[in-house]
């Protein structure tokens, strides 16, 4: 736990070297262990749980990803991190973009994995599958190439693990209910991100399709877009080793 501006934030630090800030998706840290472990062999991985997620406090009045980005700017100051590689997945990618549009003073580069956060398509249809309006089994199918990476025996989970799942769901609703999974202001701010950005996108992502990622990356000056085969919306879970390798190659 670390205190940021009075809020108690759950935080894990692993490894030594260049700081790598991992910003988890709306489903929390489930399935991220392999990626984190691999990155920690080459740098210091810093893994917070976002406000309201995991065991982190939800500060009063915080209700947008924009709000959240200021807490992370404070966190970077608090830990006095420099040359940070920010790796964000899905909602974490949205958060990475919100942080970097404010300042990249402490940031070396971004890696956006299946990032959401901007509105690109038609106004009468959501760009992103509505997690709150899709039956769970269908959402799993659309999100994962192989659902075994997600499915668990809920009966076997501890009370604490179940509570974290419920908190993550609630926090997702708080931050992404409406507008669903985006900030209408973010698109016009993306030009401010001047550091190199690597977009990694699961080829089989049907939650936020690769075309969405391509169009998103085109809005950032120094961005490149790459797909990851055999992965859905969370390549950092389904292809942890390959995603880790791409991140480490970028850092060289």
């Amino acid at each position, binding site marked *: 736990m670390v205190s940021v501006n009075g809020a108690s934030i759950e935080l894990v630090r692993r490894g030594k070297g260049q700081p790598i800030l991992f910003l988890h998706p709306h489903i929390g840290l489930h399935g991220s262990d392999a990626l984190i472990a691999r990155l920690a062999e080459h740098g210091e991985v810093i893994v917070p749980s976002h406000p309201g997620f995991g065991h982190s406090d939800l500060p009063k009045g915080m209700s947008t990803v924009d709000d959240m980005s200021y807490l992370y700017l404070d966190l970077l100051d608090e830990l006095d991190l420099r040359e940070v590689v920010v790796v964000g997945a899905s909602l974490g990618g949205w958060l990475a973009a919100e942080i970097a549009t404010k300042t990249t003073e402490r940031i070396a580069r971004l890696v956006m994995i299946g990032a959401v956060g901007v509105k690109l398509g038609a106004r009468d249809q959501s760009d992103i599958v509505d997690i709150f309006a899709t039956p769970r089994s269908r959402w799993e199918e659309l999100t994962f190439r192989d659902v075994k990476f997600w499915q668990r025996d*809920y009966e076997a989970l501890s009370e604490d693990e*179940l509570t974290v799942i*419920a908190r993550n*769901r*609630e926090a997702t609703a*708080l931050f992404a*209910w*409406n507008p669903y999974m985006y900030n209408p202001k973010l698109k016009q701010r993306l030009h401010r991100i001047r550091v190199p950005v690597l977009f990694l996108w699961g080829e089989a992502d049907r939650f936020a399709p690769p075309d969405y990622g391509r169009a998103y990356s085109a809005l950032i000056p120094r961005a490149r877009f790459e797909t990851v085969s055999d992965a859905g919306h969370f390549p950092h879970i389904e292809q942890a080793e390959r995603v880790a390798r791409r991140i480490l190659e970028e850092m060289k």
Partner: protein
Amino acid sequence: MRIYHFSEQPCPEAWGPENPSLRVNLPSRNCDPRAMAEHYHHRLDEWLLADELGLDIMINEHHATATCATPVAAVPLAILARQTKRARLLTLGYPIANRLDPVRVAEELAMIDVISRGRLEMGFVRGVPYEVPLSQRSAVGQMERFWEAHDLILKAMTSIDGPFDWQGEHFQYRNVNVWPRVYQQPHPPVWITGRSPQNIREIAERGYVLGTFLSGFHTKGLFDQYRKACADLGRAAPAADRFSYLGIVAIAQDAQEAMRRAEQMVGYLRTSGRVAEPFTTPPGYFSLADATKMVKARGKRGITARDGKFVDTHHGAIEDLVKAGIMFVGTPDDVTRQIADFVQSVGGVGHLLLMGHAGYLSHADAMDQITLLAKEVLPRVQRPASSKQAA
């Protein structure tokens, strides 16, 4: 005790098994507007009869559903405000945490109160979980928003010295100045539905009427929380008029016919919970402890009857629903006895809200039910048998 006639104004033609979800995502192509027009006219005629015969009137609202095709309670209320002569007009209620515009709520209700010459009973509800997917706002922090909306509506209605600004956590307004001024001073009576101890306490603190729906013999526990809150505050025990209960009534001159009507009406319970999976547990609606349990397994809604039997609210047999206090079924004698029994068991109810039309019940049957309730039940429950005296 007052008796209110209530219908959800359903569209039962859309209840076929081909439609697995009757709320949120049921396409409106399932609604035949010509049939719906008939329904609306019939229901309004039933409320007019209720007014004529001495019953009061209750309206509610739900959205995007065939179980209750009243998305705007203000519409039937406005019609009835003009067309009725004496009935109290209860809306129970306005889902004020889901609506974006509390000042508009105050304006709608103020007009209805004035047109009806002060007959509005103003009910606010949190709304069922499956109303949340239709709201622009998530259920996270919903109750905080509910109370802020409530505070703003009441201030808007009672401010008579010109505009004020509202700069709250959830709502911001410039120049709030509601016209017309409400007819009932300082404002129409407030009702709020509650189930959780925290919520019931807040309702009791403000001295509002507590609304309870289909909670059967569990209702006593809810009323007791209200009574306890009053006692804790050092106040006198609340009168029966602080309590209301909604049940379903099937009544006829002979018991067999009443049972036939009950079968037609119970379609309401059978279908009201028919809703697609993602909409039943919106995040933020339930406490974290309950939400955690729901991650594991979905809860089943039911009531324990007085004999200890668990009765599934949505699928229980009619006899069991009567035993649980959810339905009142039979001849006027039977229904009077069941109501008296229920009222006694919960320690007094000032307002009995009766769904006298539901499901597939015909207009003629509903008119007959209203007549029997008004002529044969109301006089007897208003004056319980034990204290009956020559007039």
